[in-house]
């Protein structure tokens, strides 16, 4: 027997750290590290939840039998999530590299000119670029 709350709190902590990592980091690669933490938090939540008998929390009080769901949804889902995360990180890193190639930097604060409120925003960047070159 194990307290269910432990893994869940750990998941919450990791989620918070992931969010912090995504938001605080300037370097795009490090932002991705934060994202990994966030996804892992979700995974932990799923795995922890799959230790519950079928029916989840809702069935906990009512069930007389501790039936396990043989579909093992939580763990299956966790495996899917890991795969999604892998795919995601692959594409993400490719894009980060593209950004680096195009701009020579992976600092998110350095690439803001598409934002309408950013200082470098122009309505016709094409012509601006053409003039610049």
């Amino acid at each position, binding site marked *: 027997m194990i307290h269910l709350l432990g893994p869940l709190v750990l998941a919450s902590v990791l*989620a918070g750290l*992931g969010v912090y990592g*995504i938001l605080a980091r300037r370097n*795009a690669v490090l*932002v*991705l590290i934060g*994202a990994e933490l*966030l*996804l892992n*938090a*979700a*995974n932990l*939540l*799923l795995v*922890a*939840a*799959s230790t*519950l008998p*079928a*029916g*989840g*929390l*809702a*069935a906990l*009080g*009512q*069930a*007389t*039998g*501790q*039936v*396990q*769901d*043989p*579909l093992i*949804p*939580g763990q*299956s*889902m966790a495996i*899917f*999530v890991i795969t*999604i995360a892998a*795919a*995601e990180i692959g*594409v*993400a890193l*490719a*894009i980060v590299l*593209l*950004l680096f190639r*195009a701009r020579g930097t992976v600092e998110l604060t350095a*690439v803001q*000119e*598409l934002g*309408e409120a950013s200082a470098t925003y122009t*309505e*016709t*960047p*094409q*012509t601006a670029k053409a003039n610049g070159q």
Partner: protein
Amino acid sequence: MLTETSARLTGVPSIDLVALLPVIAPVVALLLILLADALRPGLRLPSDLIGLAGLLTAAGGVAYLALDGEDRNTACSGGFVVTTGQTGPTRLPESLSPAEFGFGCSYVVSDLTLAVQGIVLLGAVACLLLALNGPGAKDRTAHHTLLLATVAGATALAGARDLATLTVALETATLPTIGLIALRRDAQGAQAAVTMLLTAIASLGMLLLGIGLLFLATGSLYLFRIADVLAAGPDRPVLVVAVAGAVLSLAGIGFKVSLVPFHMWTPDTYAGAPLPIAAFLSTVSKAAGVSAAVVLLGIGLPALHEAWAPLIGILAVLTMTVGNLIALRQNVAVRLLAWSTVAQAGWVMLPFAAAGPSRDSVREATAGAIGYLLAYVVASLAVFAVVVLVARHHRSGEEHTLQTYRGLSRTEPVASAVLAFALLCLAGLPPGVMGLIAKVVALRPVVDAEVWPVAVIAALNVALALAYYLRWVALLVAPGDRSAPRWRLRPAEGIVLGGAAAGCLGLSVGAEVIAGLLPGILH
């Protein structure tokens, strides 16, 4: 002391290939294109044709299934039976009847599924055709592959009835799109892709946390089961977890629909992406998002309507107000469209503000949302078709300002008529009857439920939106440069332009389609 209980899976899933045709066809096409590229790199026409054929086959599948009229379930788990040391099954929790529980289907062909798939495929075909001369020209293989993958994800999403399929399909409909954006392979494309990527990842995190919580609360990933469990009236702690899960999932899906405040990426990405991809984002991708929200909320979580309906109401009016307010002062065509799609997203989601305890109200809301979505997608495609054409014929390219359209009606009367008509459809003012009926359809559930603040703000937003749509239309007829060269229309573009115009016109006359898209029950 309990005796040992064990559960045994019964049966293996059977896959109904016909039901899954709208998903499978794009995948097969994708594989064929990759194969063709491996055999003879640089093929142009064949890969175009294969891609198109894949989409059309999928559309054919949708049409067949719609005509067939039969509701199909597929990829169903056989469920499981519980055995104990004693004779007979154990007494199960009431919420987990029948004895064979855990049963569920991952994919259901229903009116909802087919309607969304139809809309998605419509948009996909148009965007593919539009892209053939643009982003599709250089990286045909990659472009077509990614587009088809997205479409497969979006069509799967429409039929998905479990959270795993939903998540995977949503991601399949998102990740390749980011690749598509990055296909521009310049700083702007990279930036646009990064912007969307980061939002997508953050949203994925929220979605997964939400799904985790939902699973924790209900112990199932099948939406029907979740709906049953929640409808049985669980304890408050369970309910709180479920609500948190539901709302977090909604937050995770929101970015796809461009719901405020998850919309921030929209204008930047649209502006940085190739125009046909922006069109793709605003139609197929958005339709996928809407269907995810519809499926999740309408089918999985109707019992939690008390929590999400008011939230969606607030978010919807916030979305349209913010989108319209910012769109008012946009000068770049694609940015204006981006903000207008934000505003339109509010309209699409608006009917859900009216969801109530009855199944009918949820169905009405879904019908409203999907009906509006159809009108929006068709009109949007027409607008984008013209915008793509203008961009191709204009020096400053994709980020051309609205001033480029000054006097367009003098040189290109047909195209500008189509643009004006489509914009009026978006605005919802006759002759764009289609848009007007769509607004009626979207407002009807809200008025029926008497959610007055939401309804009135939405109504006022009609005028707000009209301001910038008409600003654009006014430029078309303003006196301008008559000497501009005539366009050279390519067949693909011509098809899209004509098709979208015909769609706007046809749906204006036959507005029945918009209002009656979802006649049956919701499942």
